[in-house]
Structure formats: structure tokens, C-alpha cells
């Protein structure tokens, strides 16, 4: 079963081609990582899936829905951006309430992430008084709280302390066991290795590798993911 399919996806920003004819499918119920250096098109690709960026040509199909200005399909997506910010003078609780309201779901406030991050004690604080890490925790909670079928996490552990990022990783793994699809990007490759099944390597907007992590490591005869990617970048093997 595929959760997300891209067909000949092209995105130009003026003269710059951010995504160059990408065709791929992302397996449902698995963890897939998109890796690549800065400016390789990772975020643009994620934003195309979310409908934030409109493709120049090509199609994206999410859970059987072909994207073209529709928004309903996003009910099944939980998104954690690199940095989200909310209006400054709103409290944490009000923000969660708003999103529950919009999705017409109650949202599980006993959610384990809220407890583990100890977010209850921040409920009545205004967003502007929160630290960067706490904001990131709030983003994580919002991504998971509606129990979506597909989770899209852009640099999920960036900005979190090691303890919190451990909690988040455990959560990702437990959601994976529940059969959800997880798509994430990260710069910290060593962190991905132990949890990710599939890896998509983007360079200058096109796919250089798409497959299992283990295969990649074997094929490049490297000792770990980080070195395997490094050898992909330097053009050796594959």
C-alpha cells in the first residue's frame, strides 16, 4: 500500500528548479526519511505534499486523493514544521483548542506526549513567553494529537534537548507500530539510522537514491548511513 505518490513532479521558483521531475511512492505504515544537503528540495517536496507549494507540473496523490486545491485530505495529516509560530498573545491551551475546533475533533488531551513533555503546566502561558524548545514540543503535540494516518515531520528533533528528542523518537516508533505512515527529514543522520526503514536521497531536486536503508549501506559498503550518504554525495558507488 502506498500512502503518498508523486508523478513527474516539477517545481520551479523563477529560473531555479527546486524539484526536477520526481516520481516516487512512499510506502504506507513505514518510516521514510528524506535526506539531502541544504537546498536539495526536501522542504519544497514536503510542502508540495501539504499543498503549501503548488507544483509547476506533475501530480501528487495522498491516500488516493489527487491534490489540486483540495484541503480535506489534510485531515489525515499531522505536520510538524521546522519552526511554527502562533500568535503571540494566545495561550498554549487556546492554540490546542483552536486546532481541535478546526478539525472538529476533541483531540486527546491525555495524550502521552503532553504528559511526557509535561506540557500541562504551560497551558496558561502565552506563546510569546515560551522557549524555543517548548514551542517545538507544542508543535510535536499538535502533529500527533489527532492520531493522523500520515505524519510529516520536518527536522523533528532540531531544537529539542536530548531528553525530549528521545521521547519524540519513542513516540514516532510507537506510532509506527500502530500502522501509521511517517515521513521525516533530518540533518542528523546518525539519529535516523536506528528507526528509519526507507531513505530517499535528494540532490539538486532529483532523487539519487530511493530504497531501504540497509540496502544503501550494503551497496555503498559503508559502515553506517552517514557514510553511505557521504559516498552518494561524492558520487562513488550506486
Amino acid at each position, binding site marked *: 500500500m502506498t500512502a503518498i505518490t508523486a508523478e513527474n513532479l516539477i517545481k520551479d*521558483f523563477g529560473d531555479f528548479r527546486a524539484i526536477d521531475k520526481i516520481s516516487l511512492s512512499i510506502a504506507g505504515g513505514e518510516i521514510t526519511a528524506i535526506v539531502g544537503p541544504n537546498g536539495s528540495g526536501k522542504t519544497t517536496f514536503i*510542502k508540495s505534499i*501539504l*499543498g*503549501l*507549494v*503548488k507544483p509547476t507540473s506533475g501530480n501528487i496523490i495522498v491516500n488516493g486523493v489527487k491534490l489540486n486545491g483540495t*484541503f*480535506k*485530505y*489534510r*485531515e489525515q*495529516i499531522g*505536520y510538524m*514544521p521546522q*519552526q*511554527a*509560530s*502562533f*500568535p*503571540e*498573545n*494566545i495561550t498554549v491551551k*487556546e492554540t490546542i483548542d*483552536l*486546532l481541535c*475546533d*478546526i*478539525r472538529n475533533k476533541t483531540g486527546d488531551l491525555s495524550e502521552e506526549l503532553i504528559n511526557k513533555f509535561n506540557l500541562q503546566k504551560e497551558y496558561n502561558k*502565552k506563546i510569546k513567553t515560551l522557549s524555543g524548545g517548548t514551542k517545538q514540543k507544542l508543535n510535536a503535540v499538535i502533529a500527533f494529537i489527532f492520531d493522523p494516518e500520515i505524519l510529516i515531520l520536518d527536522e523533528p528533533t532540531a531544537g529539542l534537548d536530548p531528553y525530549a528528542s528521545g521521547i519524540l523518537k519513542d513516540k514516532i516508533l510507537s506510532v509506527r507500530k500502530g500502522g501509521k505512515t511517517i515521513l521525516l527529514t533530518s540533518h542528523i543522520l546518525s539519529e535516523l539510522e536506528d528507526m528509519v526503514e526507507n531513505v530517499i536521497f535528494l540532490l539538486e531536486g532529483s532523487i539519487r537514491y530511493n530504497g531501504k536503508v540497509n540496502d544503501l549501506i550494503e551497496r555503498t559498503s559503508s559502515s553506517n548511513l552517514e557514510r553511505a550518504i557521504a559516498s552518494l554525495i561524492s558520487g562513488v558507488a550506486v
Partner: protein
Amino acid sequence: MKVLSKIVKYQLQDAFRSRWLAAYSLFLIVFSYGLISLTGDSSKVVLSLMNLVITIVPLISIVFGTVYIYNSRDYIVFMLSQPIDRKILFLGVYLGMCVSLAAAFITGIILPILFYANYFVNNLADIFIVLISGIFETIIFIGLSFYIAIKNENKLKGFGISIFCWLFFTVIFDGILLMILQQFQDYPLEKVSLLIISINPIDLARIWITLSYDISSLMGYTSAVIKDIYGTGWGSFITILLLTVWALWPLLLGLRNFNRKDM
């Protein structure tokens, strides 16, 4: 509709706790209070309030609107990743901004006037027109600012265009008009000037306020012309109509651009 009202409610929650909005309201209160206690002449007060409506209100609205869109970019992107229609989100943010700034404006003008209520018994209609035209200016310039900020990715450029836009309608436009009138003074230009002036939302507000006033002939060439041609009733109707057009087109353009934009 339900989602729209939720977003507006949330925007208002944020705006009404904002210090900037409170500062704007406070400034208006101090300004109008000072005006009333210094002049004591209700007609003069109304005229000064009119000048406020056609200079400060547009400036504040266009600046607040531009800054808000640029500052809220991450928030807007996040909201668009939720199952929300783009148009609804845009309208929600827009209405939230309009309602909060208009509320701050009304509070700032009304409170001092209520305090001196007995001064103004004869000018109630004028004050009402000042308030309505202030609301129009707020809505128009927020619409313009949203359009400009969405169209321009570069903050500095967007901000520059916004300020220029305000300067153009408050100062430059009248300068150009005056030049034209002076150059062609040998010709009957009443109707032409009327046409030109109706493309400036600030002049429209000025016309509308002065129309209802006996002193319209003193206040400016154009309102006297309008009064001559249409009379007060029709004149007011046409200016309101044109102001409504002005409130709508930047909003619709902004909406269209927002709908297509890559976030």
C-alpha cells in the same frame, strides 16, 4: 462559515491582548480628548477628527497590516497545513485585523466624545459619518497592506511600497491634482476633477465628511463641485458606493494572490 468564525475569534483573542492595539486606541483617546478640551468648538473638533481619519488611520492600518502578514508567516504556513481552505484562512485573518483595528479606532474616538457628550448634541450625524469613514479607511488600507505584503516576498520592499502607497494617497495625489487643475485652469474641469478624485479613497472620505457640512465650499474645491452636481444625498450615496468598491478590490486581489501563492 463555522471555521471562518473560529479563526476570526482566535485572531481577535490575540489582537485584543496586543499592546500595539491598546497603544493605538490610547493615542486616539488622548488626541481626541486633547482636541475637545483645547478647542471646545464641536465643528472644529469634527474637522480635526476628519483629518485624523484621512491621515493617521490609513497610515496605522497599512503599517499594522503589512507588519502583521510578514510577522505571521510561520503561523499562516502552519495553519495552511491544517485542513483549512486557503480562502477561509485569508478571510479570517483579514476580518480579525479589520474588526480589531476598527474597534480600537471607535473606542479611541467615542470615549472622549461621550465624556463631553453635551457639546456634541448638534453634531451627532457628523460624528457618525466620521466614524463610518474611519472604518472604511481602516478596511481599505488593511486590504491594500495584505495585498502588498502577499505580493512581495521581500519585507523591505513590501514595507516601502506600503508607505509609498499611503504617501501617494495622502500627499502626492493631491499635488498632482492641483497641478493639473492649475495647468488647465482655462477649461471647465469640475467633472474631470470629480472623476480623478473618485479614484482616491482618502479624498472620498474627505468629500463625504465635508459634504454633510455647511462649510463644504470652504473645505475644498471638489466637495463643493460634488455638492453642486449631486446634492448632499446623492453625493453621499456615490461616495459610499466608491468607498465600498475600494474596500473590495484590494481584498479580492489579495485573496486571489494568496490562493496561488507558494508558502
